[in-house]
C-alpha cells in the first residue's frame, strides 16, 4: 500500500471571476496558514490571492498552542501546506530550478512552489542566505512542515 501518492490530483476549477470561488480559495488559504497562492490555467489565465498581514483567521487562534512547532529547526525552510513540490513555476517561466545547493537566495525570493490541483503556494526564503541543501524533490508529495531546503548564512 502506498501512503503517499505522487499524483497532483484532479484538475479543473470553475470561473476565476466567480466571487464564491475566490472566497472559498481565500478561506482555504487562510486555513492552510500560507499567505498567498497563485492559480494558472492552461489557457493562460492566472489568479493570485495574497492575504493581508494578519488576515488568516487561523494563524493567531492557536499561536500559543503551536509555539513548539513554530520554533525553526536550524535554518530549515518548510512547506506551508501538503502538496506536490515544484522546483520551478509549472507555467515554464524562467530557465530552470528556482534554487539549488550553494546558491544564494535573497529574503523574499521564491524557492519553489507547493502545488495542490490548480493552486500554487510559493515557498519563500525567510532571509538572505546560502542554500546548504534541497530536501524536497520536484514532483514529490510533501507534507505541511516538511523541510524543503536548508539555508546557511553566506
Amino acid at each position, binding site marked *: 500500500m502506498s*501512503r503517499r501518492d505522487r499524483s497532483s490530483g484532479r484538475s479543473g476549477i470553475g470561473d476565476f471571476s466567480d466571487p464564491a470561488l475566490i472566497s472559498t480559495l481565500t478561506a482555504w488559504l487562510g486555513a492552510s496558514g500560507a499567505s498567498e497562492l497563485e492559480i494558472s490555467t492552461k489557457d493562460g489565465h492566472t489568479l493570485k490571492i495574497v492575504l493581508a498581514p494578519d488576515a488568516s483567521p487561523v494563524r493567531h487562534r492557536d499561536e500559543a498552542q503551536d509555539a513548539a512547532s513554530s520554533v525553526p529547526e536550524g535554518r530549515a525552510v518548510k512547506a506551508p501546506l501538503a502538496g506536490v513540490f515544484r522546483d520551478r513555476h509549472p507555467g515554464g517561466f524562467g530557465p530552470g530550478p528556482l534554487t539549488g545547493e550553494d546558491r544564494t537566495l535573497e529574503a523574499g525570493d521564491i524557492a519553489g512552489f507547493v502545488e495542490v490541483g490548480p493552486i500554487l503556494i510559493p515557498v519563500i526564503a525567510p532571509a538572505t542566505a546560502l542554500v546548504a541543501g534541497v530536501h524536497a524533490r520536484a514532483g514529490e508529495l510533501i507534507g505541511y512542515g516538511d523541510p524543503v531546503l536548508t539555508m546557511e548564512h553566506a
Partner: protein
Amino acid sequence: MDASNEAAREIGHSFQSLLIANRGEIAVRIERACKELGLRAILVASEADRAGAAAPGEGGPLSIGPPSPARSYLNQAAILLAARVTGAEAIHPGYGFLSENADFAEAVEKAGLVFVGPPASAIRTMGDKIAAKRAMMAAGVPCVPGPGEPLPDNVEAVRVLAEAIGYPVIVKAAGGGGGRGMRVVRDGADIADAVALTREEARRAFGKPELYMEKFLEHPRHVEFQVLCDNHGNAVWVGHRDCSVQRRHQKVVEEAPAPGIAPELAERIGARCAEACRQIGYRGVGTFEFLYEHGEFYFIEMNTRLQVEHPVTEATAGVDLVHEQLRAAQGDVLDTGRYRGEARGHAFECRINAEDPTTFMAAPGRTSAVRFPSGPGIRVDTHVSAGYRVSPYYDSLIAKLIVHAPTRDEAVRRMQIALAETRIEGISTNLPLHERIFADPDFMQGCVDIHHLEKRLREEACVKA
C-alpha cells in the same frame, strides 16, 4: 448538484482509495480494514503526531498541519486539500474530530468524494436533541418522559410541564452535550432559577438558548444499541452494550451484551432503532444511547459515527463494523439475515489512557517499554509502541484492551489476567484504576449504574484521607 450525481450519492459508489481523517488507534483500525478490503489507505497526521511516532522519518502519514486540532484534524480545508493531492476518493472521519460535523460531510460530498458516514441531513437531525427526540418518538423509540419540543419562555408554563412530568426533572440545552448545559431540579420552587441559568449558559456555551426538559432518572444504567444500515433502506440492530462505568461522563469500561436485559425487550428496542434509521434515511453504522432503569429504556441520543467501544460488539455479534461501514458507503446491499442481535459470549473493553492514576490528569510523555497481552480472546487496538511520544494536544486514549470469553465470569477473569500482563512504562496510565474496577465485587456482579465508579472513587478517597 445534478440529478445523476444526486442519484449516485444516494446509493453510494465504489472507491479504491480512502483518506483516514483521524489519528491514534482508530486510524490504525481503519487502515487495517482497508488492507483487508483491498483499498488504498491514505493516512494524514499533524506535525506533533508525525514527530511523536516511535520511528519518525521518511514515509508515514502525510502531515496536514501544526499540532493543534483546529489546524490539523479539525481543519476541513487542509483535509480536503490532502484528499485532492493524494487522489483519495473517499474520506473516513473515524470518531471525534469531524465525524459528526454535517457541514464537513456535505463539503466532502460536494468535492465529489464519498463521506464514510450518514448523510449530512441525518447528522443534523440527530445533532439537535429536540429534533432527534421528535424523530425517535415518531419511530416508536421510547424516550425519557418530557415534551419533545423546546421549553416555552413563560416560567409558569414550564412549571406546569414539570409538574406533569413529575420531579425530579432535568433542564438541558438543546445544543449541549458532554454533561454541560444541564441542571437537575427537585422542587417546583427552583424551576424558574434553573431555567434562567441554563438558558444563559446555553446561549453562551452553545450559541443556542433553546432548552428542553425531561424526567431525571436517579440511578440509570447507560445501555446502547448498535445499528447497521445501507443505502437501500435496509437497517438492522446487531447488539447492545453497557457503558455505565463512567467518570465525568467519560466511559472507562464497556461490555457486551449489557447484562440482565431480557432478550424480548432488547429485540423490541433494537427493532425500533432500526425502524428509526429507515425513517431518517440513515446510512452506515450508528449507536442509539439509552438510559435504562427499572426495566425501561429511555432514548438519550444517537451517535452518528463509529464508537470507541465498537470492538465489544464486533466480538459478540461476529461483525466487522468498519468493513460494514465501508461497504455501505460503497453502495453495497446489507445482508440483513446475517445479524439478529444475538450475542455470542461476553466481551469487555478497557480504555487505557495516559493519565495520572490518582488525579486523572492527562500525563503525556514518551513510553520507554510497552508490552500488551495476547492469547485466545484478547484483542488490543493501539497505535502505541515503545518510544512513542504521547502528545499533550489530543485525547489521552493510548490503547483499548478487549477480551472475549464464553461467559461474563470468564471474561472478567480473562480481563484481570490481561490487565496484570500489560506493561506500559515511561508514562503514567489508568491501568491501576482498571485493575480496581475488575476487583470490585459490585462490578463483577454486573448491572452497576452510571454513578457507581464516581461513588466508589469518593469512598476510596475518604478511606485514604
